[in-house]
């Protein structure tokens, strides 16, 4: 299996391209926020720091997933590195899988370090942990699954499109995906059967990013059942896998002129 060396090299490329430098910005943001919040005694500062931390993890992650994801395959073709790589005993599907896993690992490291940062800030502000704080970790895992879905979308576009168009498509899908349940509700309330069909097709076909929207509930310390975590994670992973398979199918047929 040649997936692992390719994934490892993709990770190394991200590190050398200084992708993980965003951690420094995150660290500064969390430290400064914690220090400021530490001086405030009114209101739930813990809720604010968790909300801020998780939202930043998601935002930074989406930017990395899109801007590195759209270049994953395109750069290898553009810089002609794919010629020598694919002349080795590497199947094309192994290449795509390796690229996907490599960037997923990069983001996993990124999210893990940031989650540790959020725990550090919570400890600084509250001096102890509560039982529901374990939900921060679960939220982090779900954010990672969401980011993997974004990578899969960007990767799919990068197998046949230019980086600019891929970024546009991926970002559009990410935005639409957040309003997906609104589209379904709109369809359900409409009386036109056409609108109903279009709305429900859109709902089931496009990724539903609303499934991963648990940041505010986590910050408020609301109980989230394990079923929600499991179903959301399964949805994201299955959807990502489907997109990666389509990306492989397109990449298999490509000529490298």
């Amino acid at each position: 299996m040649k997936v692992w060396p390719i994934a490892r090299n993709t990770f190394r490329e991200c590190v050398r391209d200084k992708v993980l430098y965003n951690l420094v910005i995150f660290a500064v943001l969390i430290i400064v926020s914690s220090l400021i919040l530490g001086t405030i005694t009114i209101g739930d500062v813990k809720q604010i720091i968790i909300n801020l931390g998780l939202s930043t993890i998601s935002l930074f992650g989406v930017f990395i997933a899109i801007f590195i994801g759209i270049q994953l395959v395109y750069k290898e073709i553009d810089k002609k590195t794919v010629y020598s790589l694919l002349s080795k005993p590497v199947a094309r599907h192994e290449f795509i899988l390796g690229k996907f896993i490599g960037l997923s690992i990069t983001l996993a490291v990124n999210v893990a370090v940031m989650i540790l940062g959020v725990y550090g800030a919570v400890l600084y502000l509250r001096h102890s942990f509560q039982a529901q704080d374990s939900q921060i970790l679960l939220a982090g895992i779900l954010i990672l699954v969401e980011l993997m879905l974004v990578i899969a979308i960007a990767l799919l576009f990068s197998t046949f499109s230019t980086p600019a168009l891929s970024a546009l498509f991926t970002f559009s899908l990410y935005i639409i995906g957040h309003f997906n349940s609104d589209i379904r509700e709109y369809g359900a309330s409409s009386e036109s059967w056409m609108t109903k069909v279009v709305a429900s097709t859109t709902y089931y076909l496009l990724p539903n990013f609303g499934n991963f929207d648990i940041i505010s509930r986590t910050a408020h310390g609301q109980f989230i059942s394990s079923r929600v975590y499991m179903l959301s994670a399964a949805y994201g992973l299955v959807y990502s896998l489907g997109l990666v398979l389509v990306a492989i199918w397109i990449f298999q047929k490509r000529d490298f002129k």
Partner: protein
Amino acid sequence: MQQVVILAKGLSKTYRTGFWKTKPVLALDSLSLEVFENEIFGCLGPNGAGKSTTLKLLMSLIYPTAGYAEILGKSVASIEARRLIGYLPESPYFYEYLTAEEFLTYYGSLFGYSKSELKSRVARLLKLTDVFHARKLQLRKFSKGMLQRVGIAQAIINDPKVVFLDEPMSGLDPIGRREIRDLILQLKAEGKTIFFSTHILNDVETLCDRIAILNRGKLIGSGALNKLFAQDVSHIEVVVSGISPEKLRGLVGVEIPVTTNGSTSRLSLSAQAGLTEIIAGIERASGKIVSVNPARQTMEDYFLKLVGKPERQLNPKG
């Protein structure tokens, strides 16, 4: 009977261009060729002749519209075929953020070697291609010649039976070209078969056992070098001094061309012309014979003659 290492039969590639991909462009037109074991085979042609297309088809980087190709009896599309070969793409850009050592280790790991095996292979290749001193340097800091040598190192990391090199000498200075040439000869000495494309005729003359000439996607000539160029003398060049050009023309007749450069004159005699009589005549007229050179058809003459007439079809078996 020599073993056929590379076999192509009716290999064709048509690209579709335009917005709707409807306009066909024929990049390679039913190419058939055989390359034998342990020979250096040159694929020659002007820019856009189909050399890179041929190599990419053999690497299965593009798919043929018609025909098929095999390497050592295995389809070029198979992973097994790629275990037995090495490939240096045209003007390669490798991962510039990797050091030479990391890069070769990465490519070596795609063959599934153990760590210790990989380490010794990489060290051996870094020494062989003379980049060992720069092994810890990122490839972005490498000169073109060094990159080309690293490129050859990655192509032979698996000790392949067949090595494909796409324009390995292009853009290199004379020293760089000499180094690559020596490396290619060393690979042949190790028993490998080398298939390379080039438009530098001198490299073909000094390196190749057999060649194929492509022009506008068609094979227009192929065979062993010594069979392709007439070994017979095409004309004899005589350089003379101490005699005026007018006198010389009067001596040899109007049908023999005479060119003058300062005090020397140059005669271009056909092989049948009476060389002995002409020399005797010049000496009688107190002229001095500076040199007598039998001239053979050069690679360049042959190439230009063929490429100038793309419709000419030679026997592809050579």
